[in-house]
């Protein structure tokens, strides 16, 4: 016998490790709409299998919980069972010796409190409140409900123009979304169960890159109804597009000199080249939208009042977005050299420039906008760019790939530093950003670890320019004065876009949700169009008659996901040209072939697989 030996994994352990990975991916691909009690019961079973068996609460208690949850699911429990479940879980949470027990019990407690009505429905009626309304995960998670398996199948066949037509049924910004959509659709892609999600955004990019110019569909006969749309961003233009197709006449009042809203003014051209955005906008305008640029709605000279619009039009859609910048509230924030992200990106969008050549720049913020200004500053020739963020890099709300690209282009992410003041010289010009180092700490109610002050001394980051990118607000004051209800800083509109107590007025997009994604704004425009149409007494149907290719009979072995490549960082950091490269035909063919066609296989063929009209 040797005194020590090197531990090696047994074959069984290696296999189990693989199974853990399989399970992790499987949980990622969990479709929305499952019974939460059933899920809780299944998790509990896994937790119980992990117990070492030493302590009573974990060894026995988790088993008892498991049985009680099953009795709820089988309709054999009473309302008192819920109390017993809660008591047992509470005691396990309080008395288990290690995390295997108490974290399992906490999961149960979270569920009993979070979906108690599901428990009660099972007990009272032997039924479940959950139902799989849209079983195709990507479609269910796309706010606009775009027929994703449909267009991927069309892309696979090389029918790119048809793919664009199909996307436009639900989203008139296929190009913009192909480039900048945050792709919530990919989150629960069933392909995760095999390897990883399909590159859905990439497949949309393949469609728009190869489709050529695709004309908008024919308009329905004119209704003579007129609709005013305040704000020509993704939400306003989406509403305009569908309302035009339905035969109504829309007029878009845009306060800037260019349409596109935040797609134009908030997203740098290296991510969304102007001519690409214009291709979407031109298709939308081809339906006959009237546009009034430089036409702010408000009080005063050169402005149009909302009440006039309400008088002159049959309906009004407010989609003003979120264009005001938030202040950090730091001493020195009014110094020369401090600019807001909205101001910087807006200036660049309108063809202006900001002189950052050889300057030292600090960016405050950790979201996508912070990354946009960081990467723009690099392109404007800044000597150094520090992105200062009070939490850790992994806690940033920006997309991981944005952060990764920014770093590759030369950004320094200064994580765990909270700006405390801006240091200025005698001319009130920025000389440095002073930041307090932080210690990442306990999780807060928002489910994210909160930063606390560390014992380290303040850090001075010498700089010439500070760019503040901590979020945008909404210009609500004017509307509030004119009787449009405002709640928590946003316009209060129903989930069907109508504004309470203001007949004929609808609102949607960032001005209702607060700053959010383009696809959510587009979805809001689609919802508004449908409900404005009904409000006007119509029920026009938007549909496409594109036949979707039948799925191929094939096996689906695990196969790596093809990502869209970017130009080399050293090259792209020098200009504002598009960062992303086109996918090659073989890449398009392989990646589109990875789609599992959940519209056909599984529940999709039975229910809800495809909405051909709305």
């Amino acid at each position, binding site marked *: 016998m040797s005194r020590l030996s090197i531990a090696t994994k047994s074959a069984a352990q290696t296999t189990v490790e693989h199974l853990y990975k399989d399970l992790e991916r499987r949980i990622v691909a969990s479709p929305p709409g499952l019974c939460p009690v059933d899920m809780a019961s299944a998790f509990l079973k896994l937790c119980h299998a992990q117990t070492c068996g030493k302590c009573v609460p974990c060894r026995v208690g988790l088993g008892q919980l498991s049985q009680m949850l099953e009795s709820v699911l089988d309709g054999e429990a009473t309302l008192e069972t819920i109390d017993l479940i809660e008591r047992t879980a509470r005691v396990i949470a309080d008395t288990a010796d290690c995390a295997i027990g108490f974290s399992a019990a906490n999961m149960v407690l979270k569920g009993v409190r979070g979906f108690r009505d599901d428990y009660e429905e099972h007990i009272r009626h032997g039924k*479940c409140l959950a139902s799989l309304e849209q079983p195709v995960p990507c479609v269910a998670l796309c706010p606009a409900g775009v027929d994703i398996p449909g267009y991927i199948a069309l892309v696979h066949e090389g029918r790119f123009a048809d793919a664009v037509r199909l996307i436009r049924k639900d989203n008139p910004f296929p190009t913009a979304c192909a480039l900048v959509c945050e792709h919530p659709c990919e989150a629960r892609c069933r392909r995760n169960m095999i390897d990883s999600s399909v590159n859905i955004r990439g497949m949309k990019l393949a469609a728009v890159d190869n489709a050529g110019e695709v004309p908008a569909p024919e308009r329905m006969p004119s209704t003579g109804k007129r609709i005013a749309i305040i704000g020509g961003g993704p939400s306003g233009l989406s509403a305009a597009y569908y309302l035009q197709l339905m035969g109504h006449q829309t007029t878009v009042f845009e306060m800037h000199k260019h349409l596109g809203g935040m797609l134009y003014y908030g997203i740098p051209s290296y991510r969304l080249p102007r001519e690409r955005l214009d291709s979407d906008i031109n298709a939308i305008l081809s339906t006959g939208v009237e546009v009034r640029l430089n036409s702010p709605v408000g009080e005063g000279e050169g402005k149009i009042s909302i009440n006039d619009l309400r008088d002159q039009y049959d309906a009004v859609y407010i989609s003003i977005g979120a264009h005001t910048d938030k202040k950090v509230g730091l001493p020195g924030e009014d110094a020369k050299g401090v600019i807001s992200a909205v101001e910087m990106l807006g200036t660049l969008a309108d063809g202006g420039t900001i002189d950052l050549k050889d300057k030292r720049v600090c960016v405050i913020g950790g979201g996508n906008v912070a990354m946009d200004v960081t990467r723009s500053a690099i392109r404007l020739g800044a000597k150094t760019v520090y992105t200062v963020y009070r939490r850790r890099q992994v806690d940033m709300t920006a997309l991981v790939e944005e952060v990764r690209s920014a770093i590759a282009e030369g950004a320094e992410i200064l994580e765990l530093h909270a700006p405390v003041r801006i240091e200025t010289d005698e001319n009130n010009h920025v000389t440095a950003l002073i930041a307090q180092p932080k210690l990442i700490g306990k999780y807060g109610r928002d489910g994210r670890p909160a930063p606390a002050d560390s014992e380290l001394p303040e850090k001075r980051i010498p700089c010439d320019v500070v760019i503040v990118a901590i979020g945008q607000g909404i210009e609500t004051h004017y509307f509030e004065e004119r009787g449009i209800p405002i709640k928590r800083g946003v316009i209060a509109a129903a989930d069907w876009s109508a504004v309470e107590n203001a007949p004929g007025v609808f609102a949607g997009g960032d001005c209702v949700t607060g700053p959010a994604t383009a696809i959510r704004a587009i979805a809001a425009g689609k919802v508004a169009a449908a409900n404005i149409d009904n409000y006007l007494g119509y029920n026009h149907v938007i549909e496409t008659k594109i036949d979707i290719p039948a799925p191929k*009979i094939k096996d689906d072995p695990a196969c790596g996901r093809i990502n869209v490549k970017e130009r080399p960082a050293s090259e792209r950091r020098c200009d504002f040209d598009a960062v992303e490269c086109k996918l090659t035909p073989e890449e398009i063919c392989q990646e589109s072939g990875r789609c599992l066609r959940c519209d056909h296989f599984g529940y999709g*063929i*039975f229910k809800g697989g495809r909405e051909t009209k709305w």
Partner: protein
Amino acid sequence: MVNIKINDREVHVKEGTTILRAAEQAHMPIPHLCYLKDINEIGACRVCVVEIKGVNKLVPACNNVVQEGMEIYTNSPRVREARRTNVELILSQHDCLCATCVRSGNCSLQKIANDLGIITTEYARNVPANSWPQDYPLIRDASKCIKCMRCIQICEKVQGVNIWDVAKTGSRTTVGVSHNRRITESDCALCGQCITHCPVGALRERDDTAKLLALNGAFADPNKVTVVQVAPAVRTAWGEELGLTREEATPQRLVAALKALGFDYVFDTDFGADLTIMEEGSEFLERLKHRDQYAFPMFTSCCPGWMRYLKGHHPEMVGQLSTAKSPHQMQGAITKTYFAEKMGIDPDKIYNISIMPCVAKKAEADIPNINDAGHGKDVDLVLTTREIVRMIRADHLDVKNLPEQEFDSPLGTGTGAGVIFGATGGVMEAALRTCYYLITGKNPYPDAFYMVRGLDGWKEACIDIAGTTVRVAVVSGLGNTEKLIRALKRGEVAYDFVEVMACPGGCVGGGGQPIHDGEELAGTRGDNLYFLDRGSELRFSHENPDILDLYKNYLDAPLSHRAHELLHTDHTGWKMPGEVK
């Protein structure tokens, strides 16, 4: 054309053909269970899987189309194993109490299991418990349901009523009443199409035969005179499960069988149908005469599934229904009055039984305000075609060799016009024949209104009767009905008179008819009715001599006070679940 190989044999089929269909065309049929053409092609049971060369997974044949060069194996070792295993898995959740199942001998699961020779299985039984109100006309047995989802699909896609839906999730996924309702609080039309499209015995009508057959039943009661009437559509289908050819299964042989079962009088609902035409036709002409006082179109009222649907979905249109009762309810009321009086029978002793192709009639006979004869229920019991077939089988009647017998008189005389009530368009055609006579005083050519015949779900015609243009439409199937109502509401169509039958093809395709999995027999059975019509001496309701006697001696005239009392009803006098009172 696509060139493929099935079991190493070269086969050429049209592009877009499913593997299932291609194999069937090549005479190598593939067993299947959940598949229902055009309605349920969801590949849920995985019984029809086949092996395709070059593809590792087994592929369901029902919803995948052939591709050029495909080499398919329908009975490879892997296919055999998979088919048998999947059937065994289905059986593990099925109660398999075949001896006490109405579908035994006509069950697709039983047949597949038998064909596969499954006599033992290694799986533990895990049969869900059943809970269902047993007095409801439609019975669902959860312990027999195989979750093929056909009932959900037929109710949604064909009938548009959406009574069934998937309930629960995960391993407990099952079929339940939609929106977490109970069936008794649902707006189920009771059309019974879910029953006739169920591959197993999970859905059936409430069996009411014991009310006749039990020792305390009507047959055993010396104080009861049992009077049975037979709906037109029943005669087209009753022989199907008794091994009779269509030539052997005559109405007269059915009369003989019913007599053999012990019914005292055997009448023909054709009589009630002719009576309906007299009342409904006259009512229509009356409404036409006073056009401004009525909303149009007038709808027929002989289908209780349709009435339940209209009350549940468009209660504001109930006033447009003809007030005429359905034929069997008219006949029930006349039996307990006119017939009883004529024969000198105490009407309280009469026990009226209707044999109907229909489940909704069971509910109709229970409507409280439908009874006008004043002697209990006008129709005491409704049995479906399937129930009467079971009674014949229970008595081991050798029907094939029973000598034919005529219907009893006076309520046994029917015309060809009454016979075609059982097919979609038949009520309209019969009504038009008599309306033409009532307007012009002359009979039309009996087949003059052929354009309302046929299986199209929505037919229409403009008919000129002596200068009066009558716009008529005929729909069958509630999905088609909803389309017509929506078009009416949108002003896209306008009619004077509309016939509605809840079941596709009319009563011949009714939810109480014999079941043939995968076959739609409404067309064949309907042809049989038109054949009987053509062969009838009398083809006009207004020429039925017993009807003429009835009016002369008892009712006076159509729409008379007495006729109103007995033959018409207030459709607002009862409520559907959820209908606003």
